[in-house]
């Protein structure tokens, strides 16, 4: 008995059953119904776009690890999340070569350059999307109607367009509710928006499934519920006030809530743990800032949608938000500085 080797280390000797890859894998689970609905609603084109971004994100992560002679970190599932999220924020008939490029940018510039998982300042998927938005503004705002009859039978020519060629725009334009409101002042039906029977980016249309995914993660304690609550709450309050001031000019809070990428952004993008504050008060401030920016950009900005920029801006200041928050340590009356 005493001759047996027993291993040693310091306490604690037991550890909870939740590991980082478990958390990431559960986020993937929560995203799958959203992706599934995207394919159901936009057909084979959306499937190709989502697959392309996911494969390019995972491939880039793997290749960059090999290049820097590190063990591949693909197994932590975080690259899959970034790839999926990027795919879900692109228009359904987005050219695949552009989507592939976006996936590479998301991982390389959004994450790897900062030091990989845990060090990214911004949500990697949104970095990828921001670059695509800047590089290909037309393709990024070419929409495709939901539930088109031929969505499972034909692949759009723009999807398969050759790199660096101007894609032929062959789609029947299906303006998103936000652009319809912004440019034509048309308000979409809110139940259509909740159920996702509207045009938009592949994964942002079905608010119900996005919410369910978020609730799943919150119940499993794998998402900070304060972030989406703070964002959505701020949007409801601000747009509610504006709506009360003049319902003719300003959209209703319900419209604001269910249109565009707000739901997807608030639940799956802004909650990137690495790029958001860690203190309980900090995340509320962070969420409120995103909420305010979304309303301001949507209503007074030049763009129909502002979720992406709102989150990226809030990501940038989130370390500073944490620095300003003082945690009170047990047995002290003063709030102490944390920096």
């Amino acid at each position: 008995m005493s001759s047996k080797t027993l291993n040693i280390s310091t306490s604690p000797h037991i550890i909870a059953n939740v590991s980082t890859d478990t958390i990431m894998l559960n986020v993937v689970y929560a995203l799958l119904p959203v992706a599934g609905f995207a394919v159901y609603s936009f057909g084979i084109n959306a499937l190709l776009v989502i697959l392309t971004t996911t494969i390019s994100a995972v491939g880039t992560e793997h290749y960059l690890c090999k290049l820097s002679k590190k063990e591949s970190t693909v197994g932590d599932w975080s690259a899959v999340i970034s790839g999926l999220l990027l795919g879900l924020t692109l228009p359904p008939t987005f050219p695949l070569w552009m989507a592939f490029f976006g996936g590479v940018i998301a991982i390389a510039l959004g994450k790897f350059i900062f030091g990989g998982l845990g060090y990214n300042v911004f949500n990697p998927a949104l970095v990828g999307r921001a670059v695509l938005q800047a590089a290909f503004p037309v393709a990024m705002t070419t929409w495709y109607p939901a539930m088109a009859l031929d969505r499972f039978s034909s692949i759009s020519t723009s999807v398969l367009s050759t790199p660096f060629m101007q894609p032929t725009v062959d789609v029947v334009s299906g303006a998103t509710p936000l652009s319809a409101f912004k440019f034509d002042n048309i308000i979409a039906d809110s139940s259509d928006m909740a159920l996702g029977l509207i045009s938009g980016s592949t994964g942002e249309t079905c608010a119900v499934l996005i919410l369910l995914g978020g609730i799943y993660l919150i119940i499993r304690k794998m998402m900070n519920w304060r972030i989406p609550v703070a964002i959505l709450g701020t949007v409801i309050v601000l747009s509610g006030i504006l709506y009360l001031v003049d319902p003719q000019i300003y959209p209703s809070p319900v419209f604001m809530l269910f249109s565009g990428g707000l739901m997807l952004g608030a639940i799956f993008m802004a909650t990137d743990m690495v790029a958001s504050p860690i203190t309980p008060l900090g995340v509320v401030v962070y969420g409120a800032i995103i909420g305010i920016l979304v309303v301001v950009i949507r209503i007074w900005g030049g763009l129909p949608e502002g979720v992406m920029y709102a989150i990226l801006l809030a990501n940038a200041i989130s370390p500073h938000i944490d620095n300003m928050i003082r945690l009170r340590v047990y047995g002290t009356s003063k709030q102490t500085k944390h920096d």
Partner: protein
Amino acid sequence: MSAAANTISPQLTFQHGIHPEEFKELSNLKPIERMAFVPEYRLPLSQHIGAPSLPVVKVGENVKRGQKIADPGGYVSVALHSPVDGTIKDIGIYTHPNGRELPAIIITTDAYSSQEFVGMESVDPYSLSKSEFIQKIQDSGLVGLGGAAFPAHVKFNIQEDKKCKYLMINGCECEPFLTADDRLMIEFGEELIEGIKILNHFIGAEKVYIAVEVNKPKAIMNLRNLASDNIEVVCLKVKYPQGAEKMMTSAILGKEIPAGGLPLDLGVLVSNVGTLVALAQYFRNGIPLIERVVTVTGTTMNRPSNVMVPVGTPMESLVKWCGGFTSDTTRILLGGPMMGMVQKRLDVPVVKGTSGILALSSEQVKELNEYSCIRCGRCLDACPIYLNPSHLGLLAKKGLWEEMEENHVMDCFECGSCSFVCPSAIPLVQSFRVAKGFIKQAKKRDV
């Protein structure tokens, strides 16, 4: 006794904390058993915090069970007694359970002795003055049996300018697996209450709380039936580290012990149930601290048990008494899994501070890949003293000890909740221990 007093509510608790799987069912129904005497006992002279005891016996001398074999080595030190009738075989350097080579007394057991306790006569504690009482406690070798093994007489000797208003008896036993205190409260309830009354005669607290986590309903019922006067049994929620002085004080009084201060700053004195049972036995039967209850348990222990073990018993014999452990055991611990000390070898003795021997398999002691911090915030929600372990962990990686001190790392009492919850398996509390060591060293240099 009213009906309300028979329910185990309300459940008091503190903020934050964790709830690891309890594993108490392995041994909480096993009555305390006595172990057969073994041929040899090893008694380290440092079984307590403070100066080592000074031997008063010579090699070859015969000793009786309960006879004093070493005097206190100073004020913060206690006496040591022989756990058996036997002969002093050696006084020399031997391995201590803490891994260091330290002086110890080896006693060969007298094979023909009945091992009946003859010892001292019982003393009427109520006839003693306070200083006589403190002296008696020191002579009895009593230390805190919760695990820290701080000399009890030092703790009980409250300075004139301090007043103890609340006496808190710690029966939380919040570490998973351990059940020794639970069994003591069930089987030695009368002794416990007697010990409390004796102690409170000298410290004069207005109110005595016996704090028990609600996963020990039998202990709660038993003590409620026995408690009288100003003694109240309070139910605490099952949560780790409920039994820490700071957490217990918060849960019961709703007040926080000032950072860097002592419970006594709030008029609180905390003592473990085992300590008070031992105190009562000393005054009742004159038995000094020569044995204690040890929980021998773990999922790979063949016969999990609660055993009354003579101090100085080789752990190997004790484990063998409990059927040994299976071959898939990867780690042996002294104490619980959250704060216990890992044991490399079993040829070391049970000492006064040994609360449990725990055998864990590789299934429990998971070797997980360490990831970077993903700032999930679980450690902030776990830390019972509201630190930011995530941030401290990053500072520790860079060796920024001074910044860590500014961020209150010295308040950390190393409960390990942060490391337990970390999904990235970052050794947080482990690095805080290192940091605290460096900070203390730097302070010593500056002085």
